[in-house]
């Protein structure tokens, strides 16, 4: 019995080995090409490395090293460093941090309430146009000195005229009188009297 068991175990072990070997062979055959294809592929040989490449690459290498040893001004400017003593650097960093914190903790300005946006609306309002009536009134500045006989005639005519006493009184007071002809005068509904002085002759 024990021999049989041993035999069976050996058989199983043998089978397991066989399977493993098969798997390995399969994997190997998957990765390894067949000889014929390999021989065919080998018939295509690559050329030797051209000498021009060696020369070209060496030139490039030397140029690269020269540039690395003496970098151009712009690169030196961008990559150069300035040595700073540690205490100064530390103080600068602390000052920067403190300033940043203070700026961050500063109360923010009160936000103004947004004003309502006024809508613009065009409204046409009828406007009563003012009517301007212009009456030109001529004022005689000063009475010419009248001769005696002319004066008498004038007084007589004045007395005969219908002009009231007020005019004569005004003349007596001011030294001149206004000659207004009121015949066919129709008063306007509204009247604005504008006195135009002599020196503003172009004014209407």
């Amino acid at each position, binding site marked *: 019995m024990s021999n049989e068991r041993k035999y069976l175990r050996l058989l199983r072990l043998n089978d397991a080995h066989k399977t493993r070997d098969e798997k390995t062979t399969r994997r190997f055959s*998957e990765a390894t090409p067949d000889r014929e294809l390999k021989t*065919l*592929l080998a*018939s*295509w040989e*690559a050329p030797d*490395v051209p000498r021009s490449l060696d020369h070209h*690459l060496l030139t490039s290498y030397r140029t690269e090293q020269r540039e690395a040893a003496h970098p151009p001004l712009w690169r030196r400017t961008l990559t150069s460093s300035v040595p700073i003593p540690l205490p100064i650097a530390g103080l600068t960093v602390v000052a920067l941090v403190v300033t940043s914190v203070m700026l961050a903790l500063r109360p923010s300005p009160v936000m103004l309430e947004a004003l309502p946006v006024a809508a613009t609306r065009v409204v046409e309002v009828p406007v009563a146009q003012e009517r301007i009536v212009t009456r030109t009134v001529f004022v005689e500045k000063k009475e010419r000195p009248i001769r005696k006989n002319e004066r008498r005639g004038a007084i007589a005519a004045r007395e005969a005229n219908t002009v009231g006493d007020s005019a004569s009184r005004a003349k007596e007071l001011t030294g001149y009188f206004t000659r207004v002809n009121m015949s066919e005068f129709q008063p306007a509904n509204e009247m604005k009297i504008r006195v135009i002085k002599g020196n503003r002759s172009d004014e209407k």
Partner: protein
Amino acid sequence: MTDEKLLHKASRGDEAAFLILYERHRAPVFRFAYRLLGSTELAEDVTHDCFLSLIKRPASFDPQRAALRTYLYAAARNLAGKHFRQHASNTVPIDELLDELRVPENEEPLRQLLNEELSAEVRKAVMSLPPLQREAVVLFEYEELSLAEIALIVGADIGTVKSRLSRAREGLRRSLLHYFKSHRRTATAGRVYK
């Protein structure tokens, strides 16, 4: 001296160290670039840029992650990828392919002619593969790198690399069907039976 030490010295202006480093790795990098791009000029440009970028930025190479050659392959691959993106149609004219063929000269004329033809066909077949499959074939078949190394270079897992490799081989077998001995034998047998 290790690659890391040489690189360190070269980046500090040691020309001799740079030359040793370049001599060590130039051929595989150039071959890889050439087989990817199918042109000597382009391969030259890629190899040049590859080494120059290494010297300019030596810190970009991490020896803990991969060997320097793996790093250079990856850099060459990236530069070739840039070229593929710039020139969407990456097919090389067949005349150019034939011009650049390299066959040993000390062979018999007929054998030489046959080898030239075979070489041109193989090259055409490899160049007709999509870039990702092509790089897998070139790194595995020509540069004889392991799947893990290829996975590291192309930035994919091993399974992906395997599947690309498998598809590339299928494509190559299809393209080069007439050059397989087994196929010729089958074809001849077919003719005899008829």
